[in-house]
């Protein structure tokens, strides 16, 4: 993606397309979780003179310089953080959209309601783990032990992935609530991909492997042993399947930005490689979880967020190119999530503190891109969107509506929506329309 957006519309790898298109009914969702709370106030910035002036005045030491911002062609009153050129190119070419001021909500909530402590609000607002879990589980209240992707798999796995060799959901960032269903579980894979159990026992290696696997089949009355036996058995099985599948295809030609420990590049590369073998694995629907951290910019925000976005943007760009290379661009939708956005008012360490609603990126050939969805908040401290006085925006769109739009595109039926997203019915709009 060295040339920015210029290559985005091209399909340079036609031969690969034909190969991949042997499975026509395929769709995938890719969740990119920005752990720590991405300050999306500095991702999507008002660019008109008045709007930018207000922004710069309130953000003070953490205001981005106007000249460095990347203006958006279809929506010229907004611009992007300087380190998001690939995202801008995708947006400008209609392959990406933004959803603004979206966050955890159980039901619609106004400033007046919030201040009067009326209505059900998400539990432990402004707390990282709580808000991460609530973004992932989309429960009616409190915590549940399943995530909305997992519940999606519960309802769709048999219909679409009967006979699949691996679960519908794959996490590239360890165990996350997002991926867990009531009756389905994900496969997790490290950024090194599937790796075999190493063995230096020479002629005893085959029997050692067999014996170790056999021990994991013994049922145990100790619940934790039983649970670990199951995980261990699955690990042996899935690694073997993925090793075989991934070893049988040529490497993707798309170059991913994996140097410097870029978690997004490394993980999205693995996602693309998994997609490449989806037919061999027998999956027609897949959900992937990708994550990267350090967005908790309480200090030195300008420097830290700049680095993180400079990892995210080329990784997203490369991933979109890879879906084109695979001929799957219209069948893969990628979207960002984060714990929360950050207070508009800066703190005295050149950073910002925990807040609530924020803006997110949706990317893919099926996205009705070049548009902003939701309602952009009024950037005023103590203003109509502020939960108090520091610019912690009350979301005007629920993360459940965000998930609902993605889930419906993915194929969750109307009948299954209440199971997957129980709070969705609290909102008038169950589909935000950003996917065609």
């Amino acid at each position: 993606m060295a040339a920015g957006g210029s290559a985005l519309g091209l399909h340079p790898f036609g031969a690969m397309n034909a190969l991949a298109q042997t499975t026509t009914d395929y769709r995938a969702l890719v969740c990119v979780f920005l752990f720590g709370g991405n300050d999306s106030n500095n991702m999507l910035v008002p660019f008109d003179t008045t709007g930018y002036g207000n922004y710069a005045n309130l953000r003070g030491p953490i205001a981005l310089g106007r000249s460095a911002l990347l203006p958006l062609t279809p929506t010229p009153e907004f611009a992007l953080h300087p380190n998001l050129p690939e995202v801008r190119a995708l947006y400008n070419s209609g392959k990406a959209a933004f959803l603004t001021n979206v966050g955890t909500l159980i039901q619609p909530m106004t400033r007046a309601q919030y201040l009067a402590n009326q209505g059900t609000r998400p539990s432990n607002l402004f707390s990282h783990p709580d808000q991460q879990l609530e973004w992932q589980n989309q429960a009616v209240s409190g915590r549940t032990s399943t995530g909305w992707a997992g519940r999606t798999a519960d309802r769709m796995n048999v219909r679409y992935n009967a006979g699949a060799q691996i679960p519908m959901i794959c996490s590239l960032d360890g165990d996350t609530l997002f991926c867990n269903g009531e009756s389905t579980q994900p496969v997790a894979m490290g950024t090194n991909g599937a790796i075999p159990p190493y063995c230096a026992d020479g002629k005893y290696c085959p029997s050692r492997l067999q014996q170790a696997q056999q021990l994991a089949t013994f049922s145990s009355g100790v619940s934790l042993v039983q649970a670990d036996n199951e995980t261990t058995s699955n690990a042996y099985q899935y690694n073997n399947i993925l090793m075989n599948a991934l070893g049988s295809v040529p490497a993707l030609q798309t170059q991913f930005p994996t140097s410097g420990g870029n978690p997004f590049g490394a993980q999205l590369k693995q996602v693309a490689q998994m997609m490449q073998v989806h037919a061999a694995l027998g999956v027609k629907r897949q959900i992937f979880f990708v994550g990267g951290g350090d967005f908790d910019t309480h200090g030195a925000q300008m420097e830290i967020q700049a680095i993180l976005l400079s990892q995210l943007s080329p990784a997203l760009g490369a991933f979109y190119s890879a879906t084109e290379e695979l001929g799957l661009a219209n069948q893969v939708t990628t979207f960002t999530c984060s714990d929360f956005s950050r207070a508009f008012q800066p703190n005295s360490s050149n950073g910002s503190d925990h807040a609530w609603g924020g803006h997110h990126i949706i990317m893919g050939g099926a996205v009705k891109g070049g548009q902003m969805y939701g309602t952009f908040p009024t950037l005023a401290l103590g203003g109509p969107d502020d939960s108090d006085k520091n610019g912690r925006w009350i979301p005007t769109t629920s993360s459940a509506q965000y998930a609902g739009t993605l889930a419906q595109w993915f194929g969750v039926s109307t009948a299954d929506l209440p199971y997957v997203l129980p709070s969705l019915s609290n909102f008038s709009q169950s589909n935000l329309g950003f996917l065609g």
Partner: protein
Amino acid sequence: VTVNGPTTVHVGTPAQYTATVVEASNQLLANQAVTWSITPGAGTISATGLYTPPAAVPAGNQVTVTAVSTQTPTVSGALQLALLDPVPVITSATATAQGTNYLLDVQGNGFLQGAALLIGGQPVVTTQISAEELQAVTAADGAQQISVMVQNPNPGATQSGAVTVQLAAPQTTATAAARLLDQATFGPTELTIEHVERVGLQGYLDEQFAASPTYLPALPAQPPAQCSPESITTVCVRSNWFNNALTANDQLRQRVALALSEIWVASSYNGYMITPYANLLVKDAFTNYRQIMQDMTLSPNMGYFLNMLNSPAAPAGQIANENYGRELMQLFTMGPDLLDEDGTLKTDSSGNPIPAYSELQVEAMARALTGWTYANADGSTPSNFIFTPNWNHPMVPTGLRHDASAKTLLNGVTLPAGQSATNDLTDALDNVFNHANVGPFVCKQLIQRLVAGNPSPAYVQRVAAVFADNGYGVRGDMKAVISATLLDPEARANDTLTGDELETSPAVQSGHLREPALWAVNVARGLNATVANPTAAYPLVNMGGQLVAIGEPPFGALTVFNFFPPDYVIPQTTLLAPEFGLENTGSVIPRLNMANYIMHNSASGLAVDFTAAGTLGSKAGDAGALVDYLGMIFMHSQMPTNMRTAIVDYISAVPASDATDRAGLAAYLLVTSSQYKIMH
């Protein structure tokens, strides 16, 4: 002349001889004086007939004592004596338990080469330490005491007096000892299991509380070659850490320090930051939780990580940095919701959790903790914020940058306007420390790290009650809390079960997955691993990379939320099991692979003796004995029968002559099994 006196004389014991001179008529001569002599010249005899034997018995042990009349030198008399070995003397004798045996140690003098210990009059195999010390190993056959003597060799086979030695009865079983060691240390070894059996669980904890702390050594001013540049000096510190965890005697302190590092998470960017921070936790592990709060809050490493360092009073248009103030309450002391003393959530009338603090209280806490910076290099306080790191000294207050406005904290406590940074910090930490959440919140996590991921509310409550009051009116006493955690009936409930009983009907559905770093040290200690190249600088640097690969480089969590969350529930179960947050189909294989490295002494920097002459290899001829030994070390002698049978059968198929293979394969299968990975 007639000579009178003993006919046997022990080396080391002088003998007095007398002479009687008579005339032919048998009348005593008026002049009884005689001249004494001996032949051969073994020893000396005085003018008064006192014979002093030589230092050792000569080749021929016969000595003739001759007395010659002074008045009539042609008249003499003689007596033949036999020189015998000295009489051994016992000054003290003790019996120290060694597993099912006792080591008898006898101190005294006159113990000749070949001296033997007699127990109940019967000689036993004796090791001679010196002329003053003998040792023997004797089986404990249930006797309360034994009678001990020392017998020197011939000539004479002389015996000491008998001494009675009391035998201490085992205080606990090998299973209970191993379970405690799994919970309280970096893992059992053969020797420590035997030791705890004898001193008992409380006795062991008392010993450990008294053991002097082992600290991480300071890094040299310039990053060592093994971990240069500065940004990767963490690797050297992890070498130091692994070495301490593997070998330090203050095992309980080291283990608690690791647990605390997973509550007070401060992920450091380099080794110069980690070392003093980790050493604070070692220093404070047995103090008071309030002391830990103080030292962690003022740790510059923590200050850097969570932005309390150089956090000033906010100018107009800005707010004070909330990071540390929030996480101090949320993660280090209280948790976000109100708790009952048993650690369960308090709920409102609708059944919902009740927040423990508000956003406004977070903001107030943030303001209370403003105004702290690095100390100067000499430890003095700068007049304003400085940006030259000093990781070795607590942060210091600069009144200049402190927000001195009033703050309303928890439970209605208000810090008045105008207080110093120091007074605000003291009051704020006291305010948090005295919140009712702290005991259950902290104690539950200590239980989770040491004993069980899913403790019963009653267990949490019992330990939290000790946190609230150690019995002497002191809140937060860590020794009392640690003892209560480890000696609670729920922690000990499975001590008395066999492996099969534990499998089918455990007394408590308990235990927890060994977190990766703990598992790695557990395996190394259980195999008596040593450092392969102990003279090298930072010989375990490779271990740093290994710990990354298995997901837990200590002091290197990606976020303040530790490597796994304390409230993680295994999907599709109700099992609270924090460490399973790291256990998934992607993370299992790297741990298997580290086991493979350890069994082949590669990539770890460790050396384990798998040779036929080693501890494991020497048992490998008998597959059952080998597996039972491993089961004692790693599974508290509680390996279920089906697992034992499977491994024994597998090992039996490997030729007995391949002792190294047998030992390594058996150890691999054991330490990679879920039965072992779950400490239970």
